[in-house]
Each structure stands twice: as structure tokens, then as C-alpha cells.
């Protein structure tokens, strides 16, 4: 019995997965995870095969430096060097959903929004919502100052949950308003469930808003069939069917990107601002031989026309924040809400 236990202990490790906890081994494992499981290798036109030898060589040079160095540097120094190298390798994906997690740092890619106008200045909000704004769960709301017939909701993270009762009180507070602004600028995402729940407030009927598919194999194009994504109108039993304007910018990312995409199909909804950040791939995570974790996009999501949302959603009205004393996006929303422009 003991003999068989010892024999089988060796079988727990899968013989096909060769995990080498060396600098080169970790770089290769990271490359392999992205190669087999990242869902946008093909779509982004990445030369991922070309990336491997470059970083293998760099890992080898760190390893060599460690072996040959006469300076007394702790293992911490080389761990950080390896971390920076692997973070640099992940940066080639240009994806905000890709992070490397160690005990001492988390890598992040920011180039996907750096070349775009910010379109958001939180300091300008006070003149529109004052300091007497209300907060219901994750929803900050008030009547717009000087335009009390327009309600304003700021939702800064889809990680903050809210319920039907929260939305009931918000809508009740806006009952005399003819329109509503939902501001999801700089909302980096969170729960897709919350995103679709919020969108459900503005849907009369259950609506097809897109599709998704997950990876099913190691090939870059090994995906499951497209499965429809619906916003279920019964998710929220309180409804707002008057005009609604969604404000977004490049940093409206991930679940927010999917919310903005869903709102394109809501009746009476207009999207105003800049192209959203994308992040149309649901992230999953996996572990490296040294125990670090890598997060990456694995489930590909599209809009209703089966077009990928990874590079963001274009607004109906593209507006850029130019002024320093007023919010051009809110101003544009107010103009769009003018009675003469409404149907």
C-alpha cells in the first residue's frame, strides 16, 4: 500500500506540463500561457512567436549576471529584475486586462489610454451636482444645478453593487426630470452582472446586446461557438424609459465597455464622449512555476453585429473635454436634452 502510494505520488504531476522554476522557465511558462490561452493573439496581429527568443535571451542574461556577479545582491534584486522583464513582455499585448501579480508588485499596462484625451475632470463635477449629492449604494446622484429637470448619476465602479430598491429611490427622486445622464467616465469596470443590471433599467424588453466565446484549445483560433448575451429586462423591475445619455471616455473599461455597448441598443439612449477603452475580453488567471499569477483576457466578447469590442465602443456623439472651467461632455448632454431636440 505504501509502495503504491509512493508510485502514484509521482503521477499527480501531469507529465505533459513541464514546469521549470528558473528565470528562463518562468519566462517560457508565461509565454506559453499567453500563447495558448490569451484570446486576442490573432485579432491583434501579434507576432507572439517572435517575442519568445527575445525574452529568453534577456532572462538568460539576468541569470548569467546573477551567477557571475561579485556584488552581494539579494535574491530580491533578481526577482524584481525578472518581474520587470516579464511585465515588459506582457506590455506588448497592450491590454489593460493583463497583469502580473507577485508578492511585491502588480504590473499594469497603461498605453491603451495614454494616447487619448482624458475627457474627465472630477474637479468640475461640483458645479453640476453641488456638494449636497446623494449616494445610493454605488450610485452618486443629484439633480443638475441650474437644470433641475435633468437627473445625473455617477457610477464610478461596477464592483459596487446596487439593488432594485436603490434604483427605485434614484428614479423616484428624478420623477419630474425629462432626462437622465449616466456618467461612467473613468469607471474601470467590475462585475458584468452589475453592468447588465444597470442597463436593464433602460430596457423595455429582453435585448440581445452581443456574443461571447471562450477558448477551447491551444490554437489561437480555438474558440467555442458564439453564445448570445442578453440584457434581461426583468433584472431591474424599476424602469427609466425617458431619454438617457451615457457619458464615457477611454478609461471606461471592461464591464463599463460592455455597459456602454449594451446601452447602444436601449431605446432613448445616446452615448456621448470618447471611444471607450475596450477590455472586451473577460479576464481569467493562471499561475507560473514560481507561484506568481498572471491575469489575461480569455473570453472574447462582441457586440450584436459580432464585431469585437476589445478596441472600445464609439460614441454616438464624439465630444472632447476642452475647457478647464466647464465639462464639455455634460454641457453637450444638456443641449441634447433640450426639449426642442427631443422627439
Amino acid at each position, binding site marked *: 500500500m505504501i509502495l503504491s502510494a509512493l508510485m502514484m505520488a509521482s503521477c499527480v504531476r501531469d507529465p505533459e506540463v513541464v514546469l521549470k522554476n528558473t528565470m528562463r522557465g518562468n519566462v517560457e511558462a508565461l509565454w506559453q500561457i499567453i500563447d495558448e490561452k490569451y484570446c486576442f493573439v490573432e485579432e491583434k496581429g501579434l507576432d507572439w512567436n517572435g517575442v519568445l527568443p527575445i525574452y529568453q535571451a534577456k532572462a538568460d542574461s539576468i541569470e548569467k549576471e546573477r551567477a557571475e556577479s561579485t556584488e552581494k545582491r539579494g535574491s530580491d534584486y533578481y526577482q524584481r529584475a525578472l518581474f520587470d522583464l516579464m511585465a515588459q513582455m506582457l506590455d506588448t499585448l497592450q491590454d489593460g486586462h493583463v497583469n502580473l501579480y507577485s508578492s511585491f508588485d502588480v504590473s499594469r499596462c497603461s498605453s491603451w489610454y495614454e494616447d487619448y484625451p482624458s475627457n474627465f475632470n472630477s474637479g468640475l463635477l461640483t458645479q453640476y451636482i453641488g456638494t449636497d449629492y446623494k449616494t445610493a449604494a454605488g450610485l452618486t446622484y443629484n439633480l443638475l444645478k441650474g437644470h433641475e429637470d435633468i437627473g445625473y448619476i455617477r457610477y464610478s465602479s461596477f464592483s459596487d453593487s446596487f439593488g432594485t430598491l436603490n434604483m427605485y429611490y434614484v428614479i423616484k427622486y428624478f420623477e419630474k426630470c425629462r432626462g437622465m445622464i449616466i456618467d461612467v467616465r473613468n469607471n474601470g469596470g467590475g462585475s458584468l452582472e452589475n453592468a447588465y443590471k444597470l442597463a436593464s433599467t433602460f430596457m423595455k424588453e429582453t435585448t440581445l446586446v452581443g456574443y461571447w466565446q471562450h477558448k477551447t484549445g491551444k490554437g489561437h483560433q480555438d474558440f467555442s461557438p458564439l453564445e448570445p448575451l442578453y440584457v434581461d429586462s426583468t433584472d431591474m423591475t424599476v424602469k427609466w424609459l425617458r431619454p438617457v445619455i451615457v457619458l464615457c471616455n477611454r478609461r471606461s473599461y471592461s464591464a463599463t465597455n460592455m455597459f456602454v455597448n449594451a446601452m447602444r441598443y436601449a431605446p432613448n439612449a445616446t452615448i456621448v464622449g470618447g471611444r471607450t477603452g475596450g477590455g472586451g475580453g*473577460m479576464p481569467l488567471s493562471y499561475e507560473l512555476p514560481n507561484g506568481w499569477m498572471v491575469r489575461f483576457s480569455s473570453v472574447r466578447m462582441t457586440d450584436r453585429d459580432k464585431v469585437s469590442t476589445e478596441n472600445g465602443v464609439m460614441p454616438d456623439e464624439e465630444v472632447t473635454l476642452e475647457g478647464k472651467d466647464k465639462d464639455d461632455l455634460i454641457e453637450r448632454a444638456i443641449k441634447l436634452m433640450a426639449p426642442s431636440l427631443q422627439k
Partner: protein
Amino acid sequence: MNRILYIILFFCVCVSAHAEEECAEKVCKTEACGEKVWTANGQRTNVLYALYGGQWMQDSYLSPLVYDGWQAGLGNEWWNTFRKNDLWRHTGILQGYAGKVTQSSRHNEITHFDIQAGWGAHRVWGFDTGRPKGTDGSRVEVYAGPFVELDFMAKELARNVNKPYSFDMGADVDLMVGANYSFRYKKTAYRLVYEGRINGLGVMWLPDYWQSYYETTEKVNIGGSVAFSHPGNRQFVHQQLSMDFQFKRSTWRLGAKHEYLHYGDKDRHFARQTVSLTVGCIFNCRVTRTKF
């Protein structure tokens, strides 16, 4: 998650305690812990035991790394002969355990709990083996038969994104074989028991490659996650070696259990292995049907 574990452990303790209480009322006092401890026609023999041991685990749905750690639990095994044919016995098991395993670099951990339940019947062949030197008599029994087993293990990976839980779920028809050697030494009864089970056919849960927890639970997208199992894609071995002995007026079991499970396909690999020590109390009880 920890709360769930505590509730399940509490449930297991309650079930076992309840079973003991029920039997205590109906037990034949002279046979429960006394002379006819091994087999008594018409009576059910129960082993109520606690187990503690080590575990190795791999779940490619959660991580490519091998995790190891500990597990502890409680269980109840029982057997008795069929009323009309004492060459056949039926047997059952209900076992629950929980534990924690970590990866070698200690960056992450998996908390898990497992419930196993099964029922089977087996044919018994018995032989008196005379009186070996130093003993007052001995007997060997060999048995074999089918065993239906349900296994459910829930695993939570502490640090993960959109894929925090995984499950080992399977229902199999196993082949059970066993042998025991009973003897008396200095007026004390002993029994050495070896029992093994290997899986045959069944069904199992095999989560689709990179299917997220969100898809599985929120969207109930479980297409491709249920598969037929056979020895080619699922290997399960359970074996235990134990010694039963009398101590004063009670009967005890000391033993070791070993379980090995591996299943999957080309891209999906799941494995776990446990080695545990068990300490149990053996008692007989008469099963009666309550009439209303």
C-alpha cells in the same frame, strides 16, 4: 467559504452522532462490544471513524501547479449480511473531510471539502484456517462485488480571477475487493482488513477548457462539462488497511487509507491523492423497521 466548511463538518458530526445514538438504543448489549463483534446475523456493523492525513492535488482548471497540505474528516462505514442469503453482504459509506493545500512557493492556497457516499454488495468466501501457533483460532474471508460511489469535492482557490471555484464530481460503479484475517490472541479478538476499490463506468464533471466560473454559475453554460467516465479517462483507486481489536469492552479500529484519483483529457488534468490515518470505534446494531 470557511463558514460553509464549518457547517458541513458540523452536519457530518451530527449525522454520525445521530447514527450512533439510534443504534445505541437498539443494540444487543451483549453483542455490541463483546464476543460476537465481527459478524452477527441480522445486525449491522458500523465503524465510526475520524481521519487525518496529507493530500496532494492538481487541478488544471485552477492552476498548473501541484498543491499539498492536510485534510481531516469523519466517516461512517457499515455492513451486514442479506437476510435471505448470508453469503452476500451489503455495505455503505458516508465520509466527509475538509482541508487546505498550498503551492510550493506558498503564494496561494486551495480550501476544499469533500463528501463521499456509496453503497455496494459483495459475495463472501470464508475459510477456517485452524489454530496457528500462539492463537486460539483464525479465519480468512475474501469478498468481491460492485460498489456505487458518489464523490463531490468543492475547491476554492484563494487568489484567482473569475474562476475561483472548481469541483471534483463523479458517480461511478466500482469494483470492490477485500480480505480479512480474524484471529484470537491471548483471548483478545483481532482482525486485519484490506479493502480496495477501483472505478469502472460512470459520469463525471469535467469543466470546459477555460470556461469561467461566471459562465458556469451565472449563465449556466455547462455544455461539454459533463462526460462519461471509464478507466481510460478516470482512474480511481481506494485502498485501506486496518486492524480491528478489542480493548476492554469496546472495539476499535486503527488504519490507513490511501486514495488516488486522476481524470481528464488531452488539455484538462485533475488529480488528487490522500494518505490518511484513521481511528474508529466499531459497534453492532440491529436495524429494525418502525411501524406506524
